[in-house]
């Protein structure tokens, strides 16, 4: 009896965590914006919301997200086609390389793009030397194109993997049937391929739109003072202008918009994953036939790899060659030293230690919460491990469906909510806890847990209940069943989720910026500070630390790739 009670408590932990560390801070934000001097004041809310600068920011946020999404889709679709239809040497590696940008921390990306295409960047240096110019010809980093490029950089892999995965599971017989019935290539695309692909494209685009809409680090660093998304504006209002009510109101706006997007997205996701044909076949991939196809294929892949890898390579390169001394390790060596006037308050290696510790804490916490949440979210009647009772199949299926339909976007909410809003919420809500260093891993956990859930849930759903049933019939107790049947299958998913959480925590910037204690900085914070400080030494150290962060994140990705299941329905 007590055991059951304890276990039910265990299962309600994720919800409790969400309530206390997410909904409560958000509620306080709500309170802060709506209640001034103890009274409900909608006037100030309206005042903020109708201020022209807010609409300017909102408009900018929206159109840059839309344009970024469009560019990402246009670049991602041909790549998705290539990966779902063709077999070629190095396919797995190239696919992993295309995904590397996605796990890169925003500070790394910002530093990388600046290194490559900034006014003093590599490209400009080469162009100036080659064409004997006085002025750097490429000014993209000063324009909105820098932001757009960075967004495309980040999100191409989302399109390639989700749409590509869906496309490769599209029944190839359908296009064969259409062709035999007289459809040429164009009509085939229009009549069969695109209509069937559309739900998946729209879902993936929505996700990309969401990521671009809530973009913070990229816009903050690359946008300078000229460009601000809603996120950046919230940060400015809170940290630079100390206008907490305004920041809070903007946060609410942000949450409302992202919740709307997320709801539409989860609905579409469910629709896109419904089987279209009763027995669908996995497409057989062929090698490209003929020089023509090989040429197109290699051209497209080469262009993609150049776009996606050159900033990172430029970053690494520059970290070794900054200044005029040729190849040097001095900036890396500097990381171990704590100079008195350095921008870092601590020896940079200490920041590395902090980041690693936070990442480990985040990993453990989000793994626990994520797995528990996944079990709660699985729609099929299932045996909750150790509890031993099967969710009642006969009683009130409507109620169960409703609650899990509602829980799904709720658990996803932290993913869509801005990290800055979260940080803001902690500042407002946590009172004396505000200065606790534990807030950082907690914030990281909130951000990382949805990824764990999204990784673990499909694995859980793929567990065939008949396996479990047959084991039970053969005499295995519920806990035995869980250990022997579920555990090996789920271990991989858990591993992937853990590495995901770890990598996300390492690179998290937005919430950390608001919540961190200055004396316990993380790597992204330290990099951000150094990027803003003058001096070659500071800049060089920023590059060195960024490169370290980049390598660690890439390693994390490799591990994820090794152990991940399949491609469909990843996000």
């Amino acid at each position: 009896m007590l055991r059951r009670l304890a276990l039910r408590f265990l299962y309600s932990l994720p919800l409790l965590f969400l309530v206390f560390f997410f909904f409560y801070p958000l509620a306080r934000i709500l309170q802060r914006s709506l209640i001034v001097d103890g009274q409900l004041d909608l006037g100030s809310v309206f005042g903020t919301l109708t201020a022209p600068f807010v609409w300017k920011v909102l408009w900018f946020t929206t159109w840059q997200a839309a344009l970024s999404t469009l560019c990402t889709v246009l670049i991602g679709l041909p790549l998705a086609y290539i990966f779902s239809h063709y077999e070629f040497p190095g396919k797995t590696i190239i696919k992993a390389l295309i995904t590397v940008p996605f796990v890169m921390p925003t500070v790394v990306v910002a530093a990388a793009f600046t290194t490559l295409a900034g006014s003093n960047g590599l490209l400009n240096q080469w162009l100036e030397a080659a064409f004997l110019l006085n002025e750097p010809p490429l000014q993209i980093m000063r324009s909105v194109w820098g932001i757009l490029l960075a967004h495309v950089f980040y999100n191409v892999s989302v399109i390639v993997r989700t749409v590509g995965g869906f496309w490769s599971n599209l029944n190839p017989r359908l296009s064969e049937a259409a062709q035999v019935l007289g459809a040429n290539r164009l009509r085939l695309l229009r009549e069969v391929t695109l209509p069937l692909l559309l739900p998946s494209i729209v879902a993936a685009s929505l996700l990309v739109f969401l990521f671009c809409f809530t973009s913070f680090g990229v816009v903050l660093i690359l946008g300078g003072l000229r460009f601000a998304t809603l996120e950046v504006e919230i940060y400015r209002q809170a940290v630079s202008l100390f206008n907490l009510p305004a920041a809070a109101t903007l946060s609410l706006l942000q949450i409302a918009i992202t919740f709307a997007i997320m709801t539409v997205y989860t609905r579409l996701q469910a629709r896109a994953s419904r089987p279209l044909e009763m027995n669908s076949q996995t497409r057989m991939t062929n090698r490209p036939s003929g020089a023509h196809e090989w040429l197109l294929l290699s051209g497209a892949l080469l262009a993609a790899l150049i776009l996606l890898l050159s900033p990172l390579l430029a970053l690494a390169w520059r970290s070794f060659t900054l200044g005029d001394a040729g190849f040097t390790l001095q900036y890396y060596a500097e990381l171990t030293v704590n100079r008195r006037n350095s921008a870092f308050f601590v020896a940079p290696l200490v920041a590395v230690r902090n980041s690693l510790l936070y990442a480990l804490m985040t990993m453990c916490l989000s793994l626990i919460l994520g797995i528990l949440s996944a079990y709660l979210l699985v729609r099929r009647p299932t045996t909750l491990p150790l509890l031993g009772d099967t969710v009642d199949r006969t009683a009130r299926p409507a109620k169960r469906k409703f609650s899990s339909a509602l829980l799904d976007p709720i658990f996803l909410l932290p993913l869509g909510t801005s990290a800055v809003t979260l940080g803001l919420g902690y500042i407002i809500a946590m009172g004396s806890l505000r200065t606790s260093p534990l807030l950082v891993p907690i914030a990281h956990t909130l951000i990382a847990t949805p990824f764990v859930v999204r990784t673990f849930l499909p694995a859980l759903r793929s567990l065939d209940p008949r396996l479990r049933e047959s084991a039970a019939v053969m005499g295995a107790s519920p806990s035995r069943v869980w250990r022997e049947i579920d555990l090996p299958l789920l271990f991989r998913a858990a591993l992937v989720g853990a590495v995901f959480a770890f990598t996300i925590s390492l690179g998290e910037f937005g919430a950390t910026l608001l919540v961190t204690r200055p004396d316990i900085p993380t790597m992204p914070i330290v990099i951000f500070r150094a990027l803003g400080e003058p001096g070659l030494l500071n800049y060089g150290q920023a590059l060195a630390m960024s490169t370290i962060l980049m390598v660690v994140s890439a390693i994390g990705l490799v591990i994820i790739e090794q152990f991940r299941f399949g491609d469909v329905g990843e996000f």
Partner: protein
Amino acid sequence: MLELKDITKSYTPGNPVLRDINLSVAAGDIVCLLGPSGCGKTTLLRVVAGLEKLDSGAIFFDQVNLAPVEIHKRNFGFMFQEYALFPHKSVGQNVAFGLRMADWPAAEIKPRVAEMLDLVDLQGYAERTIFELSGGERQRVALARSLAPNPRLLMLDEPLGSLDRSLREELMTELRIILKEIGVTALYVTHDQEEAFAIADQIVLLNAGKIEQSGPPAEVYAQPGSEFAARFLGFQNLLTTQIHAADPSVARTSIGPITLLQPSPVGTHTLLIRPDALILLPAPQPDAHSAVVRTTSFRGDHVRVQFDATTGVTLTVQLPVDVGVIQTGETLYFRVDPKKVVLLG
């Protein structure tokens, strides 16, 4: 009408799926490609449709070489094994697809769709979605869809494969009636010989990418050309036999000498004894064979009996129901009807 000349095709080098296939199909004929899984019959179909490329050889339709003709320009019909109906279109839109691709005027499409649905006995189904249909209904829609644009040649890839037995029986005869009514030339692929016999004008038996035998169904059944053909058609009583020059009308087998209808070539052959070739004798007779009953199995309209002949050969025969009670272990004496044995290659 359709000529296949020296068709060779491999998916992986060194492993030909089709080897030197030569075939002629007359206009209006239903030709059935019959064979076990992996024998290349579906590949042959796909090659004719243009869905796969040939390694060597040529396909002629109406004396025109099909090599440069793209899939969508061939005006053939193809019924896939899993139907491949467009899930995002209604029944009517599926059937109309080929007509729209051929740029039929809209006014003519609707009546044609109705006509086709009528033909396959699905009147009024035009507005339904694919998901509402049963297996048999989907098969009919697939048929209507492929017939609607009046294809010059219809290819069917195991269309009855995923249906249950009673449905298959029903649709087998119906399919032939529909195809004959339209008068379309058809290439039909199946691994089920009963289906092939019911539907085809010509049977082409494929074995590991080569044509083993071809001919009208009755002929193929009466005279299987090889042991493979006989086994595939379901015959089980295949004995090695010697024919000596001294007595060319007698086949010497391990169960004893069997008289043949006519003198046959000297040498070693395989002898097929049809399941109904045994004439039971009430009492042992000098030139009778004997065997011990191993199993009996009542099959409704006949009794299936397995014998162990004296030398360890097992014969499976069908005896009429009125043969009376047969005990396992009983020794039976019989003669073999010379009209019901076939000497194979």
